[in-house]
């Protein structure tokens, strides 16, 4: 029997409900050859695509481990490894034998990896012998140098074949090792890359805490982890993973099993801990990291607002940026001296009240005609309205009010009760301001979700017709979600205006809407923690539409990676990073009902 389920989540999802004995390993060459060929070619195609997108060259500047590995080479190692690991995957089904992993998986991994490597080898050789610059604009001699290791193309070709095969074999080998070693391996890889990727933050924090000697040891002067420290870090993490033995998972399931008052206390403790960390940590961080945090915070605020609309009420809004724009512009018009039409300039906090009310009205105005539509139609219309708002701000017709393409500049700092002035020059203050409003947004989402309105939103999301038949005025309730979402978005806009000190129509491209939506979907629709995690990962690491993230080198490929992540997420974990329990059920309830039926017991919560 499988372990008791927690929270109604499909913890054992994909694994058998009745443990079936493993059958002896298959012979090394008994392969499903089409599968190998498919996996290998997908990986090969991916490798070629990555190479030709110029990603390796751009990312080569970022070192992971000082002399040996750069991020550029790292992106070329992932796919063969993944293909090698993936081909060893067996779907466990009742009545179908499951083979215990053996030499078969290793050989399969080797073949897949070699195929992937062969793709790159072929590219290397082709690039030297044919001028492909015309159709392939990103092709550059630097790419060829990188691919051939500054040697002959044949040398490069052979090396890539070998590297591919080695990574594939490693992927296959990972199938053989026990869960402990697998966890240790994954932890080590993640820790080393993580430490390298987070270098600027870690260094920044260490400086604030006076731990420079440690980071000097860990990182090389010009970026990247020293190879000997990398070894040390790997050892340390491996040790932690082995001794930890999934303590984290234990703690999680322990927390999930807590009932009533204990659970409330535990949650309260966690919230206080997080809040303290968020308040104390920025004091030790430098300007750049605080800037990053402030950007993440702005997107968290936006995502929390959109989460009410999309996650709770199920209204797919593709024009959410409109409310961000209205918020920014209203704040700008009211506080900036460059706005000629409205002369009395009022303080930021007073303007904020106007901003929220006005954006609420705009939400009502846009929502009223739109909300009667359903599903795809609604999404398309909101997309249109998002653009209309931006074009209105851009138009010559209204340029007297909104400054047209020039926008507004010289927006004064946001004064908070005369205590402090918040503007872009001190990102720490911006962060605290954003933090306060995020807390407000979290409170609003949390309270509303647990009220009759939240339940009505859920009902509308589940089945609008039935909700209507059960006496819920669906138009009003959806409109309310739309307006609340708009108001939260406008807060972010107002802070943005004060932070940047200027607003232009170009800051409110359709891309912003998409990015916020991706953050919500990626993090876990309908879950507050999930949405925050999504913003932290996507905006913090990859960067927002215009804001740089930790991996500033990725800026050019941001959208490519957003897309790839979204596709992967939809395939592997459609409920998001930290899912809403209900959402998970929605996506998996057939499987869960079947599991329960197999086990002869109702799914426990």
């Amino acid at each position, binding site marked *: 029997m499988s372990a008791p389920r927690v929270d*109604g989540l499909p913890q054992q999802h994909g694994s058998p409900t009745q443990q079936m004995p493993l059958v002896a390993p298959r012979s090394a060459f008994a392969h499903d050859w089409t599968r190998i060929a498919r996996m290998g070619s997908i990986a090969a195609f991916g490798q070629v695509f990555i190479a030709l997108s110029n990603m390796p060259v751009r990312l080569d500047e970022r070192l992971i481990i000082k002399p040996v590995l750069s991020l550029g080479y790292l992106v070329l190692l992932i796919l063969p490894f993944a293909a090698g690991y993936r081909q060893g995957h067996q779907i466990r089904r009742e009545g179908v034998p499951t083979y215990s992993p053996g030499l078969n998986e290793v050989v399969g991994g080797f073949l897949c990896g070699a195929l992937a490597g062969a793709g790159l080898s072929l590219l290397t050789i082709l690039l030297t012998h044919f001028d492909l610059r015309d159709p392939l604009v990103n092709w550059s001699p630097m790419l060829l140098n990188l691919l051939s290791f500054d040697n002959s193309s044949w040398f490069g070709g052979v090396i890539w074949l070998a590297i591919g095969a080695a990574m594939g074999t490693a992927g296959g080998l990972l199938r053989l090792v026990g869960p402990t070693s697998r966890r240790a391996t994954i932890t080590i890889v993640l820790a080393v890359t993580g430490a390298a990727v987070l270098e600027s933050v870690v260094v920044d924090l260490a400086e604030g805490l006076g731990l420079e000697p440690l980071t000097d040891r860990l990182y090389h002067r010009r970026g990247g982890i020293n190879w000997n420290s990398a070894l040390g870090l790997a050892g340390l993490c491996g040790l932690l993973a082995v001794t930890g033995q999934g303590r984290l998972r234990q703690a999680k399931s322990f927390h999930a099993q807590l009932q009533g008052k204990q659970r409330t206390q535990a949650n309260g403790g966690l919230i206080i801990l997080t809040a303290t960390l968020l308040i104390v940590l920025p004091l030790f961080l430098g300007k750049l990291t605080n800037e990053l945090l402030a950007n993440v915070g702005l997107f968290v605020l936006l995502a929390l607002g959109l989460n009410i609309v999309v996650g709770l009420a199920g209204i797919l809004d593709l024009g959410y940026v409109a409310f961000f724009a209205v918020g920014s512009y209203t704040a700008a018009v009211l506080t900036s001296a460059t706005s000629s039409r409205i002369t009395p300039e009022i303080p930021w906090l007073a303007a904020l009240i106007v901003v929220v009310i006005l954006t609420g009205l705009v939400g009502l105005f846009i929502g009223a005609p739109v909300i009667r539509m359903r599903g795809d139609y609604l999404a398309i219309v909101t997309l249109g309205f998002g653009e209309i708002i931006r074009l209105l701000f851009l138009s010559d017709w209204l340029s007297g009010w909104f400054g047209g393409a020039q926008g507004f500049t010289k927006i004064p700092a946001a004064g908070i009760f005369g205590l402090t002035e918040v503007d872009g020059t001190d990102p720490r203050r911006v962060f605290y301001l954003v933090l306060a409003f995020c807390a407000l947004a979290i*409170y*609003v989402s949390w*309270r*509303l979700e*647990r*009220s*009759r*309105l*939240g*339940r*009505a939103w*859920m*009902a509308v999301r*589940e*089945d609008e*017709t*039935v*909700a*209507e*038949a*059960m*006496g*819920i*005025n*669906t138009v009003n309730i959806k409109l*309310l979600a739309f307006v*609340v979402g708009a108001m939260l978005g406008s807060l972010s806009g107002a802070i943005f205006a004060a932070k940047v000190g200027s607003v232009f129509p170009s800051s409110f491209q359709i891309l912003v809407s998409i990015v916020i939506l991706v953050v919500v979907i990626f993090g876990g629709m309908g879950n507050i923690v999930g949405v925050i995690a999504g913003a932290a990962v996507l905006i913090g690491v990859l960067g927002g539409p215009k804001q740089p993230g930790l991996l500033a080198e990725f800026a050019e490929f941001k959208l490519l990676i957003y897309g790839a992540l979204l596709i992967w997420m939809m395939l592997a974990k459609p409920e998001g990073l930290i899912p809403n329990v*209900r959402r998970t*059920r*929605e996506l998996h*309830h057939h499987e869960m*009902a079947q599991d*329960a039926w197999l086990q002869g017991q*109702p*799914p426990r*919560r």
Partner: protein
Amino acid sequence: MTTQTTLTEAMPTAILETRNLSVSFGGLHALEELDMQVSQGEIVSVIGPNGAGKTTLFNAITATVDISAGDILFEGQSVRGLDPNKVTTRGIARTFQNVRLFANMSVLENVMVSQHCRTKQHAFGALLYTKAFRREEAEIRQRATEILSFFGTRLIGYRMDQPAFSLSYANRRRLEIARAMATQPKLILLDEPVAGMNPVETAELTGMIRRLRDEWGFAIIVIEHDMGVVREVSDRVVVLDHGVKIAEGSYEQVSKNSQVIEAYLGKGVPEK
């Protein structure tokens, strides 16, 4: 003369009345000039072969389809042209033929959300967590539990917190009824409440339909194909065929009606 007296007698107690009710989809007349009355505290069965317009009648009453002619009076007032939610607010609740629960909400939440039109706390109450808000939440929860306990132990206890999709088929049908009850209606429309149930469950639910009337005071219209249930529960039976009322009366009267037999079994071949 006789019709005149029955009308005046029936008027004060008639909770629902359809007058010349017609619904057509393009050229198809799903309901044609239907006159029908339901009195306070009465259980009326609507029967008829497939495609007779029974569910269309329910949809017309609850405003899910547009009426092409005629009128529907509920407690003497027209409900024609109202939004479905307004009809429910007036006091008409329904269940669906193909069970349509809020599958991913818990059993309790399904019943709680259906009290929406009877509660009034707004966003500010929820945000400020006012006393009135907390009291109303407690009341909603309390009433939901009461309604669920009408079904014995089947829907309360650990089941209350389970998602609706995890319920057995019969329990889903029960929950649909509970959800309709939670809107605090005066008239409940049950669309094939025992379809797919086994004989034991059918017998249990038959008794429950009567109790709904006796203990909760609802007037009930039932669409049902199970003639045993129809005989058990109905005060009156209305037979529809091709959108036209072909017979009305007690179960015994209707079951002997030659038109009804013809509608169900077809015309006998005339002997030579």
